[in-house]
């Protein structure tokens, strides 16, 4: 089959690889109909996530049709012919973490748990196409994929919603939603979201459906801010204005009640010297993150507020504003999204028309053009927000 693979830093390549087979009894094989490039794929391609290997099949946002199931998948859970969206964290459904609905911390799904434990203190779940640290599972930017624990993860789509309407249930919609969910949003809340990429857009939409009084988008790409504006959100361009002053203006001097970091480890920054500091430390690998968004969110949040982090971090960061966090009674919440927890309720919200996931799609390309897709997405060319690939 054809698959988009990691081919070294800043390089992806569509290659022919063997078709996937059932390796565990609870596996299913899915023929992929739609897949997408995620912002977190860029962290892999940019070389900031360790343990990638040449030839790794990328992609963790995909859906398609079940063409084979292992002997351990009960027929009432999944059958050949089912149309499914596959959540990016692989979760067994049996361990303590899964029992607590913390699927992205599944204790059994990562065969490389020993390595992850060294990096993170405790192991994390397996993730499709997302380095060997998270298991070394082939990803979904391909024609077919093997889906472990197929009786737990895949969400059956039984209505006639299009692929584009449900594909993002695999990752970015639940991730954005969890960012807002972690904020315990009240109807008086002003919620500020750093990053107007696809996850940020969905965090904004989610904050609104959860009842926020006002949602503010912070980014520097005019087209991304326009997209947020069209969806009804207030915008701040950090290339043009000072974020803190503008946030104070917009909140009567209080600061936003809830702040969401939807940027993560490769933030860019209005202040050149601070950007240079982190960029250099990151380049020589003495710091793995460029955490401007997180720092600014913590400094901006009103006292007693919540800072929710859904942008991806992989290692260690410097100049963490612990003083602001501690002295102003902030709550910091985070996590890789526990997608399985949110898929069904979000599917209902899509069906009811409360959230329109298709609004972020700017490009649809054949899988063969994955390299070009990565290029325009990474370089924000052609007003690129989200690329969907068709195998």
């Amino acid at each position, binding site marked *: 089959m054809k698959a988009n693979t990691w081919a070294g830093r800043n390089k992806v390549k569509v290659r022919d690889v063997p078709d996937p087979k059932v*390796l*565990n009894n609870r596996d299913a094989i899915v023929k992929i109909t739609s897949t997408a490039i995620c912002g977190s794929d860029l962290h892999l391609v940019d070389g900031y996530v360790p343990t990638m290997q*040449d030839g790794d*099949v990328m992609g963790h946002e995909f859906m398609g049709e079940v063409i084979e199931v292992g002997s351990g998948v009960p027929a009432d859970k999944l059958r050949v012919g089912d149309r499914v969206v596959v959540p990016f964290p692989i979760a067994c459904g049996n361990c303590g973490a899964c029992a607590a609905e913390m699927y992205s911390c599944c204790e059994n799904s990562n065969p490389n748990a020993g390595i992850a434990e060294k990096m993170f203190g405790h192991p994390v779940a397996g993730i499709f196409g997302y380095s060997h640290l998270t298991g070394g599972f082939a990803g979904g930017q391909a024609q077919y994929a093997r889906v472990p624990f197929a009786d737990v993860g895949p969400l059956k789509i039984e209505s006639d919603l299009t692929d584009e309407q449900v594909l993002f249930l695999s990752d970015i919609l639940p991730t954005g939603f969890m960012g807002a969910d972690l904020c315990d949003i009240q109807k008086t809340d002003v919620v500020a979201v750093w990053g107007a990429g696809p996850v940020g857009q969905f965090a904004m939409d989610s904050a609104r459906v959860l009842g926020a009084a006002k949602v503010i988008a912070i980014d520097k790409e005019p087209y991304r801010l326009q997209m947020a504006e069209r969806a009804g959100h207030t915008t701040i361009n950090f290339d043009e204005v000072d974020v803190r002053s503008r946030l104070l203006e917009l909140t009567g001097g209080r600061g936003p009640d809830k702040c969401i970091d939807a940027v993560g480890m490769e933030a860019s920054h209005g202040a050149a010297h601070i950007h240079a500091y982190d960029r250099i430390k990151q380049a020589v690998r003495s710091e793995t993150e460029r955490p401007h968004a997180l720092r600014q969110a913590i400094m901006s949040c009103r006292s007693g507020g919540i800072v929710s982090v859904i942008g991806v971090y992989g290692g260690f960061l410097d100049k963490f504003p612990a003083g602001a966090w501690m002295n102003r009674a902030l709550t910091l919440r985070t996590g890789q999204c526990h997608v399985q927890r949110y898929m069904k309720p979000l599917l209902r919200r899509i069906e009811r028309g409360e959230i329109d996931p298709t609004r972020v799609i700017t490009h649809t390309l054949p899988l063969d053009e994955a390299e070009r897709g990565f290029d325009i997405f990474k370089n924000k060319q052609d007003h690129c927000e989200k690329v969907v690939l068709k195998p």
Partner: protein
Amino acid sequence: MTRLAVRDPAKVRQEEVQRRGRGLGWMSAGLGVAQLAAPDTVRRISGVDDSAVSRVMVPLVGARELVHAAGLLTSRRKGVWAWTRVVGDAMDLASLGMALAHRGGRRRRRLVGVTGAVLGITVLDLLTAVHATRAKEAGSGPAIRGARRGGPMELTATTTVRRPPSEVYAFWRDLGKLPTFMAHLEEVRPTGDRTSHWSASAPFGKNVEWDAEIIGDVAGEKIAWRSTGNADVPNAGTVRFVPAPDGVSTEVHVLLTYDIPGGAVGKAVAKYFGEEPHQQLDDDLRRLKQVLETGEVVRSDGAPWGKRARKEFPQRPAQPLSDSDLAKRAGA
């Protein structure tokens, strides 16, 4: 998660180096203080009291000695600081050589005496520096290196399984199932109610086999066993099953003891456990948890061989296996 206790000869060598380093440090301190506090006495004893240059040189050398002393007395890295002393000795010998060339009579005799003493100290410094460097090389390896010369090795590990203690106990008590999650075991065959025959796979030495007996068995709580007869690698183990605070899970606490022999088998065992001996047992328990909670050992494209995926890196790329890869698995 895991603790390892091995009496380690490398550690003994390290302690010796630390002790000698401190000795040299005190010597440097004494010399330094003397050269700074009473430079003229030092110059007279050394036979260079006729030189104006030595009036400047002797306190400078004294200051340098204090630097050596500070380093040797405060740093754990005695090797590096011992080498700085060797360099200092070379400088001193060069100066003494120059002084010798320009003197005769009483002063020359004194110079010869001092040079001899410095030569002796140089030898001592050199020996300490070399020793420290070697001890560091040996010490930077894993503690298990000590075990190559034989000796007892204890490994402990623990995990929590979301199954009741009775079930986890029953699984373990069925000794034939141990090889499904313990990487080094090929087969465990019960030969009686409390006795069994064990064989370990190739990495553990060539077909190491032994008999074992259960010496403690409390249903739902504890199993203890030990090898019997003339085992190549005498070993014993205890596993305790403790109800976890959540009321549904079991804490599994394992203690394994290996009496590692010298010679080829001992070497093979040490090599098997490698740089991080506890990692093997941690991985074994992770697989136990997978089997009990999910039904089988979890496989990925990067690590498709279950318990055979011993060396975690480098792995095969995360892309589906070819038919020939799968055929290899069937044979493995």
